[in-house]
């Protein structure tokens, strides 16, 4: 073993604490980096695999069977933009009794699962072979083993269906598959006097060019244009399905990357600090090494090796931890496609993390190590032994005049005694406070987004009209003692000028301004001729608040003015909300949103209302928000985990600085203790040395956190649903909270300094002064 290796190993043994700090911060940074990059790379993996296996459709279009024939729809497969197609498959929305409950499900007639496009993956059981059989979508859920269950359609002409299989489709808008001959062309409406509900044709296309939304939209328009006007009912773009499939994970990527960058910056600075500290603390050793013949290269490489060894251990610990932590998120994305949940490892990402983190560590350590290699031996020996007056002297004189306890002023004066180290401490605190500011802000903003999307404060019960009249149901709801207020609602698909795809038009009878849709711009509509819409629709239709657009209703064309932009994810953000008078006086509502009086239980109310309405008349439910809730909970928990990681790194940075400072100041502390400084006063000196740095870091960290919060929240809105967010969702920081965040900077600094302060208080005066 050569002398450099022996010396390096000896130094590693001697500097266990600093090696541990490097190991810890590098492990935490690697953990955060791997988690972010794994998610970035793997989040779309399940969809891509499922899409490839299924030869998934780039575009699914549904057509009105009353306006277009199956042959006309089939002919669209030969259009130039289409490379391959399956269909047309007829579809019907049918009320079905299943497991004792009533639901409206989409039934599709399909002979085989392995069609050219959109192959259906059978998870259990088999495909339908005969009349009276059905395969259900795995998304229906709610049953341990649905095979053999009988579905009872509430539609003449469709017999009871026995479930023979459970399947998953990438384009998952179908609930039940049956043989085509099982589906009639139309079924009678449940309400007497209403028109019969006609079947639609669904067509699954693979396109020649489908890598962007614009390309898919262009193909959509070309297909729609080849058919009679008004034939298109709905469209489904695979890019949007892909975005929606892992939307929770996708919205996390910006903040995961931002926080990982924070973690890496903090780690690099801490490593540089450790090496600088080691150089300063070991100046005498370095001088002796040079005096006995170590070359500058040997000195530099020895120092680098001292850093690389714990850093390598940290990376080897942090990366697997990051891979493991990313699994639940990737599994969450995979489960939507019924794919087997496998342990997803991205070796390239892990190798990148390993190489990246170690490179950053080496770069951070390189400068002080090179500097140590270049210092002349005589200079380092002299500077290691001669007394120096450092930068804190002047501050000390000034602070001594303040009417504060002397331990506090003595400690505070040390704040900037080593400017480089002080700067690193400030940055460590800054990163910690910026992370907390960002995470707290994002959590509060997301809570507001969740509240605006779920609207549970405003609407507690949703009522679907089934076999009853609008008037009867309105009267029934009004007569319930628990009803505070309600609004009748109707949904129509309409064509809108400038858009190739249909838009959902939601119209309300009565005052609907209390419904709780968050306004981004403008105001809620006040009467006929006005509407509000989400950002995505405004962008797609090139509209701005105050502008007019034309919508085609079944019987006429109406011009409406957009008076507000709302946060709304319904119908893939392609919708309008307006007053029912736009539809004319005969338009009947098919849904009711009910706000209950305080203290009324929503489930009890819904059950009572359903019962009062009579069988098949209405269906009332307390809206199930668990999907949205679980997504927000997942994001919140990831945010909290990363905030803790960042705080741990920041506290480690402060800890490291204070350890270095107290070691360098061991003589001063021993002298002070010798002349009568108590342990408590010693703790006060050490803690006071970081208070100013903590405050500065806190003050600087807040704007960084606020900027990050604003930018990331904006990004998340775009990724989640191409939407802007109301200004009030950004303004979540009260003056009190900001003041607390400055205090958090001080608290973080004190937390990092607490243990070294205790060590300083317990240090033996005699051993330090004896060593002198």
């Amino acid at each position, binding site marked *: 073993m050569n002398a450099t290796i022996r010396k390096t190993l000896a130094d590693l043994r001697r500097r266990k604490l600093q090696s541990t700090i490097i190991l810890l911060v590098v492990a935490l940074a690697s953990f955060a980096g791997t988690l972010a990059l794994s998610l970035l790379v793997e989040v779309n993996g399940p969809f891509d695999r499922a899409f490839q296996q299924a030869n998934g459709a780039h575009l699914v279009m549904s057509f009105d069977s009353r306006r277009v024939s199956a042959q006309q729809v089939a002919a669209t497969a030969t259009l130039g933009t289409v490379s391959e197609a399956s269909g047309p498959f007829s579809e019907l929305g049918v009320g079905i009794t299943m497991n004792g409950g009533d639901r409206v499900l989409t039934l599709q007639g399909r002979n085989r699962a392995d069609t050219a496009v959109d192959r259906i993956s059978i998870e259990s059981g088999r495909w339908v072979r005969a009349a009276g059989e059905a395969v259900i979508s795995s998304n229906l859920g709610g049953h341990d083993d649905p095979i053999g269950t009988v579905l009872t359609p509430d539609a003449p002409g469709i017999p009871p269906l026995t479930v023979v299989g459970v399947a998953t489709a990438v384009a998952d808008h179908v609930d039940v598959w049956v043989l085509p001959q099982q589906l009639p062309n139309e079924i009678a409406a449940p309400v007497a006097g209403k028109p019969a509900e006609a079947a639609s044709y669904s067509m699954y296309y693979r396109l020649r060019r489908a890598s962007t939304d614009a390309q898919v939209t262009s193909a959509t328009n070309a297909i729609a244009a080849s058919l009679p006007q008004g034939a298109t009912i709905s469209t489904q773009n695979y890019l949007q399905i892909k975005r929606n499939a892992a939307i929770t994970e996708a919205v996390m990527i910006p903040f995961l990357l931002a926080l990982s960058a924070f973690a890496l910056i903090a780690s690099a600075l801490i490593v540089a600090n450790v090496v600088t500290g080691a150089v300063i603390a070991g100046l005498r050793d370095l001088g002796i090494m040079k005096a006995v013949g170590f070359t500058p290269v040997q000195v530099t490489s020895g120092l680098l090796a001292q850093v690389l060894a714990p850093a390598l251990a940290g990376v080897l610990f942090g990366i697997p931890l990051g891979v493991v932590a990313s699994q639940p998120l990737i599994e969450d994305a995979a489960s939507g496609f019924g794919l087997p949940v496998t342990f997803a490892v991205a070796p390239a990402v892990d190798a990148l993390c390993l190489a990246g983190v170690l490179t950053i560590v080496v770069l951070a350590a390189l400068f002080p190590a090179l500097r140590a290699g270049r210092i002349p031996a005589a200079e380092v020996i002299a500077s290691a032994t*001669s*007394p*120096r*007056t*450092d930068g*804190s*002297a002047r501050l*000390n*004189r000034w602070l*001594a*005049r303040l*009417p504060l306890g*002397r*331990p506090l002023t003595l400690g505070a*004066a040390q704040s900037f*005694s080593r400017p480089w180290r002080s700067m690193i401490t400030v940055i460590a605190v800054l990163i910690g406070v910026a992370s907390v500011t960002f995470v707290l802000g994002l959590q509060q903003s997301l809570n507001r987004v969740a509240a605006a999307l779920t609207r549970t404060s405003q609407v507690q019960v949703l009522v679907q009209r089934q076999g009853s009249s609008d008037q009867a149901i309105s009267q029934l709801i009004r007569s319930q003692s628990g009803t505070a207020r309600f609004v009748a609602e109707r949904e129509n698909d309409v064509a809108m000028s400038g858009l190739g795809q249909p838009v959902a038009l939601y119209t309300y009878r009565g005052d609907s301004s209390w419904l709780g849709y968050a306004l981004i711009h403008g105001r809620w509509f006040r009467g006929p001729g006005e509407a509000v819409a989400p950002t995505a629709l405004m962008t797609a239709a090139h509209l701005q608040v105050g502008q007019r657009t034309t919508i085609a209703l079944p019987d006429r064309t109406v011009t409406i003015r957009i008076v507000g932009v709302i946060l709304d994810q319904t119908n893939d953000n392609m919708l309008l909300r307006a007053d029912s008078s736009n539809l004319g006086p005969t338009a009947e509502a098919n849904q009711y949103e009910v706000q209950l009086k305080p203290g009324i239980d929503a489930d009890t109310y819904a059950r009572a209302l359903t019962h009062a309405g009579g069988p098949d008349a209405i269906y009332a439910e307390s809206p199930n928000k668990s999907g949205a809730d679980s997504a927000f909970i997942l994001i919140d928990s990831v945010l909290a985990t990363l905030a803790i990681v960042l705080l741990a790194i920041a506290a480690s940075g402060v800890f490291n600085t204070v350890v270095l400072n107290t070691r360098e100041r061991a*003589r*001063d502390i021993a*002298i*002070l*203790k*010798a*002349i*009568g*400084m*108590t*342990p*408590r*006063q010693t703790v006060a000196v050490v803690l006071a040395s970081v208070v100013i740095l903590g405050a500065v870091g806190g003050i600087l960290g807040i704007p960084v956190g606020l900027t990050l919060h604003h930018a990331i929240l904006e990004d998340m809105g775009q990724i989640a649903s191409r939407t802007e967010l109301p200004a009030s969702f950004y303004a979540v920081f009260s003056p009190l909270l900001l003041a607390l965040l400055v205090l958090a900077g001080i608290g973080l600094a004190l937390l990092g300094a607490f243990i070294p302060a205790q060590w300083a208080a317990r240090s*033996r*005066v*005699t051993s330090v*002064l*004896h060593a*002198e």
Partner: protein
Amino acid sequence: METLVQLSDVTKRYGSRSTEPALHQVSLRIPAGRVTAIMGPSGSGKSTLLNLVAGLDRPTSGVVTLDGIELSRLGEAALARYRRVKIGLIFQFFNLLNNLTALDNVLIPAELAGMPRRHALERGHELLDQLGIADQARKYPAQLSGGERQRVAVARAIINRPVLLLADEPTGALDTHSGEQVMDLLADLNRGGQTILLVTHDHRVAQKYASAVIRLVDGQVTDDSSSAIRVAVQ
């Protein structure tokens, strides 16, 4: 003569029981108002004894008493207050705080004791004047000569008017002339009633300034000229 410091059967061992003790069953008394010198070769236990009296270290066994205070009964905080109020420490290498001016170094024990800064300043200036370094008050230790640094250390040691001044080789890092000046200062203080316990290996210093000499060899008292105060080793 009144006894200020008493050590009864004091043993100090560093490390395990098998190691040789630094002090072995030492019993002695230091009278008040005198300069007592502790002499002995390197490793004889002089500094250990000083540290035990200063409350910087605790004996493995035995009792150390100063001014009626049994040090073993004091916790760390109380020991610190004891050092602050009862003891003044002078070191061979001065042990001044390099980032504080001479005056601020002197003021530190008074400020730690809670003395108002105005009063502390008055007392600090008075001491620096008394020790002949008033013009050096604003200078930092690095800007002072060795003799001046030790005078600052003396001023710091006596600012709280301690009952005992402990001086550990106070002239060890000084040239002969500066060393004599510092010792003359200590002698002046003694004439004013200050009890001084002086650790030195310089016979001339001990002979000239000490009224009693305790000799230590291998952790044991071999000779005590302090008016037969030595207590028989059991």
